[in-house]
């Protein structure tokens, strides 16, 4: 399961990143708070497969499918 599959108002812990993800993007996501073991919460889903609203620690991000479906979570 990935962040993209999180229903609204549920949380999960980041397990791993997709192996094909470029290294620089992975580092950036780490720095933005998406670290392995970190609890992330899906605050909102938007219609027509639009971006999700994800809360990580002290920040809220809007994240599109391209990234969200590359971050796996343990449910």
């Amino acid at each position, binding site marked *: 399961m990935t962040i993209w599959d999180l229903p609204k108002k549920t949380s999960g812990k980041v397990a791993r990143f997709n192996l094909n993800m470029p290294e*620089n*993007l992975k*580092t*950036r*996501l*780490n*720095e*933005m*708070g998406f*670290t392995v073991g970190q609890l992330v919460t899906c*605050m*909102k*889903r*938007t*219609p*027509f*497969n*639009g*971006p999700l*609203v994800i*809360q990580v*620690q*002290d*920040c*809220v*991000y*809007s*994240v*599109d499918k*391209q*990234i969200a479906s590359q971050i796996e979570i343990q449910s």
Partner: protein
Amino acid sequence: MKKIILVGKPNSGKSLLFNQLTGLRQHVANFPGVTVELKSGTFGDFEVVDFPGTYSLQAMSSDEIIAINQLHKALDHEDTALILCNLDATKLERSLVFALQAQALAKEHGKSVVFTLNIMDQVKRFGYDYDVEALSKVLGSPVYAISAKTLLGISEFTAALKKHAAAPEKCQVQETLLTQLSPLEAAKQIADEHGIKQELVLGNQTKLDNILLNSFFGGIIFVATMFFLFQSIFTWATPLMDLTEAGVFGVGEWVSGALPEGVVADFVNDAIFGGLGAFLVFIPQIMVLTLIIGLLEDSGYLARAALICHKPLSLFGLSGRSFIPYLSAHACAIPAIMAARTIESPRKRLVTMLTIPLMSCSARIPVYALLVAVLIPDERYLGGWVSLQGAIFFMLYFGGLVTALLVGRLLDIWIEKGEQRNDLPFILELPSYRLPHWRPLFYKTLNSGIAFVRRAGPVIFTVSLVIWVLGYFPEQGNLQSSWLASIGKLVEPVFAPLGIDWRYAVAILLSFLAREVFVGVLGTMFAIENAEENMSGLVEQMQADGFTFATGVALLAFYVIALQCVATVATLKGELGKNRYSWGIFVAYGLLAYLVSFLLYTMLS
């Protein structure tokens, strides 16, 4: 002069702090990625440099690349006295990730670091306070708790900053227990121990987001906001516009009454009050636009709007991040083209930059407002908050947007073949909602009016002068047999398919100098023609002249699409580093404008 380098996480209040230190008025707004180039100002005996915000030392978008490269340069430079690193106290961990990286780098280069813990006013409102001394100890550099907005702690901080900058060797970065940890781990530990709890910060934000990002209401609120924004430029400004018009005519009548009849009086009447006056009347519109965009920028809603637009915009080769440059392009295309630097994907950035000139910038407002007032009856609804003219005004903006999207789609298909598809994905921080601060907003609004006059005023004055001389002589006030008419008739055939006579053709050609010139030129010509009659507004004169609906629509369409701005082309050239798009786009939009207005005229007449 020794330099103080101001860096930090995006949207942490660096530019507001910079403004407080230097007394300048850099653009401040509540979304990440406002500052996209370096800006300097003086603070006492020092130069402060405001940097674009960055999440890390490893840059991704081109504004970050600028910031990081320049930071490396500054660290190597002997003139750099101090690195001032700004932290957002409501988001300590995120701020520290970059701050600790920057601090470590500064230490390597033997530079000293000072931290500001900004946005303390909000932290206090949430009922929390930081132990600044403990935080200084654990970070190994001095920390000052401040609020760049309410000026809490600013006077102590500025005194201390002067001291530190004069003797940076006294605040060298200290070894701490956390030095051996990675910045990520250290940030987490420090934030866990000292930071404000996230529930305190995010509570209100979540409640508002539930409404504004609601799957159903979110879209409606978005469309309503945009409609309200663009129609109010017209509706709200009308009373002010009438007032300015009355003022201009009052002064005009008084002055011309005092002058003896003859060439001089005619000149003052036609060129000064007819030409320049016709243009001054539109200052209120520019100011209303700036005010409303300013309100939106400060509230934090724009990042949400970018989210809502992401999906629809990506159908046209754009990203949600294109939304903010697009919106600010309605004031002026030049800063908007610069703002596109924050778009991570180079391809989407290119498409955004090339379509920005199709957004109706404020230089088009006088043209739109004049033609709308001539063509559309003044009907009002909902107690005067919405008007028919305002709604048509909105349609013009919408027309520009639709054209931009279609062109974007074409460019997207076309570029895909030539240039490699190199897409970085969409991730955007949603900032906390904040109440706008009235003072910067007030100055911003006032300045937009002044800047408008400064930029176009001299051009319009000169053009009105030349036009008056050419239009008044040789027969002293007979426009139709003047030199101007003979010149105008030469170009008339080119524009005849759009249903316009030589007077409008001249006005269109001259507005390649500046779009606002259109009203100035018409104002001068009509004033010469109608010299015997009582003074009335340009609108009534054009209506009496038998200006048709089809012509009006054709003219409007032309102004929506045509790129009549040399400065925009120059900025595009600067940002793209090659000419092939910039002049190409200039010609392409000119031809497209002509074609569309020709089709509309033929259909309507």
